[in-house]
């Protein structure tokens, strides 16, 4: 579903920024905001997010009517880093992970970059943004797990070819964590630098609660449990310790000594 908000106070949004939306109304039983990547925004005017009404919070959001007031904090997080040079780039997204990618494609093209797109989903109905991205890129390849649209298979089945054919130097990805892990690996194996917008459940979205952490290697080579809300959600694909997500690696900064903590 698309949610377009009249947002007179919204600042400039870059691709990868997210919005934290309060759900359930004042005094309701759901205390935590829901985080969504920002699909579109015009500074001082509007903000648009895409969501699927899966849980209680998003179901509530789906029942809101035009004219209702929704409490949003945005833009939050660190967006995708854009190249200084007009290089060849690939955008890869799974399902609603495509939400921020039209904006990214426009930003990259604005810098003279070539933009090739790979969009994947389990099935045709779960694809998002195919037509919109066609309008702002040099090529779009679609993959579906069940073959109902495009190439049957996963985004990573076609990614290596796209990188090779277009001599791509940068890969930008957003989608489920296993997809991001695979994209980061294929990118690295094919000599491209990757940036991934991760999905971790958040409680605050502003860096105070320490809920949304994952193990990320810093510039100093040290792995830290980094907050996806303020240190991310965009991380370098080669810096996230994908195999160790949901764990605390024993060599992480401050990791428990034997016996645990």
């Amino acid at each position, binding site marked *: 579903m698309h949610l377009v908000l009249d947002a007179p106070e919204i600042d400039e949004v870059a691709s990868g920024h997210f919005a934290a939306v309060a759900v359930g109304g004042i005094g309701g039983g759901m205390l935590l*905001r829901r985080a969504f990547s920002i699909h579109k925004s015009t500074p001082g005017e509007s903000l648009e997010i895409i969501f699927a009404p899966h849980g209680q919070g998003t179901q509530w959001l789906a029942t809101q009517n035009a004219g209702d007031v929704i409490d949003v904090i945005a833009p939050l997080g660190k967006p995708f880093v854009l190249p200084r040079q007009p290089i060849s780039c690939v955008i890869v997204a799974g399902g609603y992970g495509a939400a921020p990618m039209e904006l990214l494609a426009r930003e990259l093209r604005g810098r003279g970059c070539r933009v090739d797109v790979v969009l994947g989903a389990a099935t045709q109905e779960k694809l998002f943004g195919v037509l919109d991205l066609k309008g702002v890129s040099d090529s779009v390849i679609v993959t579906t797990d069940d073959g109902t649209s495009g190439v049957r298979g996963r985004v990573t089945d076609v990614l290596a070819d796209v990188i090779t054919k277009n001599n791509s130097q940068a890969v930008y990805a957003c989608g489920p964590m296993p997809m991001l892990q695979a994209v980061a690996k294929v990118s690295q194996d094919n000599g491209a630098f990757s940036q991934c917008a991760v999905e*971790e459940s958040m409680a605050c979205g*502003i860096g*105070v609660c*320490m*809920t949304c952490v994952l193990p990320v290697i810093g510039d100093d080579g040290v792995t830290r449990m980094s907050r996806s809300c303020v240190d991310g959600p965009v991380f370098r694909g080669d810096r996230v310790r994908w195999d160790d997500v949901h764990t*605390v690696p024993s060599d992480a900064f*401050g990791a*428990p000594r034997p016996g*645990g903590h």
Partner: protein
Amino acid sequence: MNIDLTTSLGSLQLSAPTLTASGCAAAGKELAQFGDVSTLGAVVTKSIMMAPRSGRATPRMAETPSGMLNSIGLQGPGIESFLENDLAWLRANNVTTIVSIAGNNVDEFGELARILSKVEGVDGLEVNISCPNVESRGQVFACNPYSAAQVIETVRSVWHSDAPVLAKLSPDVTDIVEIAQSVVEAGVDGVSMINTLLGMVIDVDHMKPMLGGRTGGLSGPAIRPVAVRAIYQVHAALPHLPILGMGGIRTGHDALEFIAAGASAVSIGTVVFGDPGAPWRIANELGQELESRGYNSLSEVVGLAHHN
């Protein structure tokens, strides 16, 4: 509005009645984009330990009805980095600061207190003897009057500052008054109550506890009546003991319940995750709640529910 909202915790005078709750505002800096942190009663920092600490595996959070479970596990940079970065920022921004400390053992609490009693910018110490997200239940010192007193005596023996020492208490005990009495005898200037309650959510699709740490601390409005009850009981037994109240406060109306039960000031915790401006909003609302009831000051209402 001409309501006097100033208050105190022992020797510490507070210009505003709402503080942040430990673990819910990091060390204050992130909240600065939502309000002037120096106008809060104080920032109570996330509990700091001697060594850097990664915290627990994820998932670390589960939303529950009017609340949440967390199992962060005291992630933090360690005392050295805290002094250099966090405390320096708080000082530079003139923020009244209560530093929360946590130790793996009694000696570590003592060491932290010894270090903090020598540095500038520490306006109070909150001794977190009640974090539920630790490996052993024996580390929840506040569950046992003897262990609780041992930590406080050790802290007190090295604390050479006039800033008050508060013990943070757990409601997960048979008799919270007994624990409060033991920490008072050990020399605290006040108590903070309550910490989270130990809880669990089970993911029935995978038939396992939802949180990486299995158990977590329950917070939010769901626990508010437990907090009000605990404060009421302790204030009844120890009417002169300053109490910093916390546990699911969402509005000024909620805060007023805590004050009437016996708290001199309140910390705003979980609600900050959904509403980062809440500590300021709730202070304003508290003023309005007092005014609409014909009171002139917060101090005249402290413990008032015991007299009616």
